[in-house]
């Protein structure tokens, strides 16, 4: 399990990182929890890894009506952030807490996870349900996209070749909101066979997103059960299509129920 020859550079600024990524087959290295195993298996063979770990892009805080998570905030940071104890944000903390094991959560980052775009990754569903915006930097400057615009398919995103996620921002939900993430995992990989994130508001309006069941995570449009029946669900050796569809119904129902309960708690929540 030895990677192929690769060069390494540790960037000291975002501009330097973007510059370094100009090399052909260069890759950003954030927490390395997806890239390094792929390199050890020689599935990924970048010519250069640009370590962005020193860019100070961590942190989780509310500011200006948004919850802002630095792209390099680790899963462990999200799991333990005080601000995410609010029932409206619980989907973020509980999703982070269920990723990998402690070693993975200590290194893996939200930005890295989103950019990797594994179709069975958990957090993309949460970012969709919470209506997250992604702040991006490239040599052309800054832009913001909706989380729903990121994933185009398995391991494929709308990010430019030299574009870096710097922040994940979620609009602060109104009081009386609750969120939840529920997944059924593959017993070996721990990746979601089906994962659902739900955000429920005081007025009963609900946003639900699914991951693990199709080429990319998606928001459920209209009646959730109808949307699942309409969706193109993937099947594989372990979990055939009919089983995965059943799981999708189940995790959505459970996520919405849990989020609704949290919405009640949120109405009287004091940080």
């Amino acid at each position, binding site marked *: *399990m*030895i990677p*192929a*020859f690769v060069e390494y550079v540790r960037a000291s600024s975002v501009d330097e990182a973007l510059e370094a990524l100009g090399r052909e087959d260069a890759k950003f290295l954030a927490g390395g929890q997806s890239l390094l195993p792929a390199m050890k*298996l*020689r599935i990924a063979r970048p010519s250069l890894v640009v370590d962005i770990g020193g860019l100070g892009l961590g942190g989780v805080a509310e500011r200006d009506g948004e919850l802002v998570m630095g792209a390099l905030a680790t899963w462990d940071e999200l799991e333990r952030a005080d601000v995410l104890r609010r029932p409206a944000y619980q989907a973020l903390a509980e999703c982070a807490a269920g990723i990998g094991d402690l070693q993975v959560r200590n290194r893996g980052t939200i930005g890295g996870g989103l950019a990797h775009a594994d179709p069975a990754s958990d957090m993309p569903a949460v970012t969709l349900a919470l209506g997250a915006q992604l702040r991006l930097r490239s040599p052309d400057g800054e832009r913001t996209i909706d989380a729903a615009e990121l994933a185009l398919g398995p391991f494929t995103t709308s990010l430019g070749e030299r574009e870096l996620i710097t922040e994940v921002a979620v609009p602060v939900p109104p009081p009386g909101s609750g969120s939840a993430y529920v997944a*059924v995992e*593959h*017993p*070996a*990989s721990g990746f979601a066979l089906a994962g659902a994130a739900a955000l429920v508001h005081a007025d009963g309006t609900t946003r639900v997103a699914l991951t693990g069941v199709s080429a990319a995570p998606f928001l459920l449009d209209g009646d959730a059960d109808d949307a699942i029946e309409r969706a193109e669900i993937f099947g594989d*050796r*372990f*979990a*055939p299509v009919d*089983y995965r569809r*059943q*799981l999708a119904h*189940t995790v959505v129902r459970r996520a919405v129920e849990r989020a609704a309960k949290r919405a009640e708690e949120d109405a009287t929540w004091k940080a």
Partner: protein
Amino acid sequence: MESVIGVPRPRLDAPEKVTGQTRYGADGHVHGLLHARLVLSTEAHAVIQHVDGSGALEVAGVVAVLAAADLPTATTGTDRTAEPLARQEVIFAGQPVAMVIAESEAVAQDAAELVLVDYEPLDAVVDVEVAMAPGASLARRVEEAEAGGDLESIHAGTDHGSADDEHEQLSGNVLDRVHRTSGDAEAALSSSDAVVSGTFRTPWVYQAYIEPQVATAWLEPDGTLVVSTATQGSFVSRSELARAYGLPLDRIRVIAEPLGGAFGGKFALVEPLAAGATLALRRPVRLVMTRREDFAATNPASAQVTMLEIGARKDGTLTAIRGRMIVDRGSNAGWGVEGITSLLVGGPYRWEAHDIRGYGVQTNRFTFGAYRGPGAPTAAFAVESLLDELAGELGLDPLELRLKNAVVDGDVGISGNPFPVMGAVDVIERTREHPLWKERGSLPEDEGVGVAVGYWPGGNEPAAAVCRVDADGTMTIVTSAVDMTGVDTGFSTIAAAAFGLPPDKVRVVLADTATGPYAGASGGSKVTYTVGKAVQRAAEAAREKLLAAASEELEIAPGDLEVVDGVVRAVGAPDRSITVEEISRKALRFGGRYEPIEGHGGSAQTSLAPSVAAHIAHVRVDRDTGEVELLGYVIAQDVGRALNPALVEGQMRGGAVQAIGWALFEELVHDEDGQLLSGSFLDYAIPTADRVPPIETLIVEVPAPDGPFGAKGIGEAPVIAGPAAIANAVFAATGVRLRELPMTPPRVWAAIQASLDA
């Protein structure tokens, strides 16, 4: 002195293991070491046209690219020892085809990717039932070699049944047939009040030891081939190397390194590769398998299909058992578990008649190898599921049904031989008293409790041990038995008790094949029973030397002396005493008067000491997802005598955990072309700590007449009945019977759906 027997004590090797200090096979420094990387077959079945290593040889640091013809093999067989690298025909995807030898592992891996192998693909034989049918494609075209070795004897203290004298038409893939029959099973079944039957399927299962396979070979100045290796048996590895390369035994020295888990999977699989490279290049070579190689290229437990039918009378008396057991050996032409599984399928029960056929069938899937209780969990899954069903049909308590038919001393089993002393009745009686079982009727919805019983016959092999007392009064026990399961700690307890020393004064040393007394491989649940007996006798022999010297010192007849806690004293007059240390010091010096306090002991056990274990599983089934959660688990086992209850409980828990793996998680899957689909821990699930409930252990002690202090071999019994117990619990929770392992969430969900549709 028996006061040290039955006292829980930590393993001798626990501190070094838990602090990461243990030096395993891949850790030692060897001057001038080269590193090997394998090139594995990408085809499940093909003829090798050409191996082109020229690209690899251009990589700086590459020393050689070796193919089969480059190894100085001395036999023409086609087993893994005789053919470490495929010669002509590859017979499974993952079979080693070539080896790149380089100055570093990284270079070897870079270069291995550049080795080009031309294959002419042949039909892959993947489905074992299809493989059996007359006219099926053959999984191996090249003429079979003779059976490949004597590994079978390690595992089963049993004989095959009578040779099949009938004329069932089967393909050439069927390498072995076993037919065990007694009485008229047909008549017994047709006159039974209840008959149940089913087809049970179990997959290939990986041993999943933490430490991948590793071996390091070098040549001594006198030309001796030395192989340092993670093996379960140094003498087995030596004889396999001798066979592979035609070397006399005295030109090979095998050093067994501390094992990072083995479970039956480490028997001379990689030694011929490392040794072959060393013999070809005359340089030290190490092969450490990567996890992916270890998944693809080693020797997991075979898949099995069992069609079984059993009957009983109204009162619960079992009548007959009839079945066909098809064992997928993969590429293993040498041995399979059809012999033992067709024996163990009878369980620890009396049958009036039996008619069991076993088939060993070759396919293009792995090379079958041993895994904790080979052939036993698969057999128990079938018969113990059916016993549960039969109890339901008859309206009987499942444990009472088993108890009514449990064998007692002298009952004749399917083997045709009387069972030796067996604790089946005691174990079942203990199990039925447990609250988890007694209170199973008052569970919430979707929860259930299941029970099952299994046994392992035990095994035997002559063994010897050496005992030596030093000038400081401490003792060293020397054996060649690889410590796989804490047996060294057991030896220290046995020696301490037999001699009269505190156990912390006894250390145990593992010798190599050049220096040690003989011991077979650690496997078959035979080490404590056989080597332990030799240790006991070695300590007793040393004690005689001690008493002879003490008798002179104290002027008391040896028969009037006892040894307690390192002190020799007169029976009834403890103030007339001398310490072991004093006597040893008098012996071990210039001009000393006494023979060194040493002893040699041997054993050649002929009796077997089977161990019976019962499992109680408590599950909750999520009907929406098919997930089975274990809420509670109890295992009761007859261990003969628990020399060290802490270690015995560890074995019981470890067996139960691996049983949970069989039941719920583990499955090596191939596609229709024979490509491995679950060859990594991302795809192959094993029970992790968060999925295993607390496991309660109930130690039952029915002493083995010939075991050291009554101890039996206990390593294999605790894995056997677990899958059936969990399947029976799933039935209790849902009313659905799962007859295929593992009971994954999709399978459980689909079975529940099917029952709703029906």
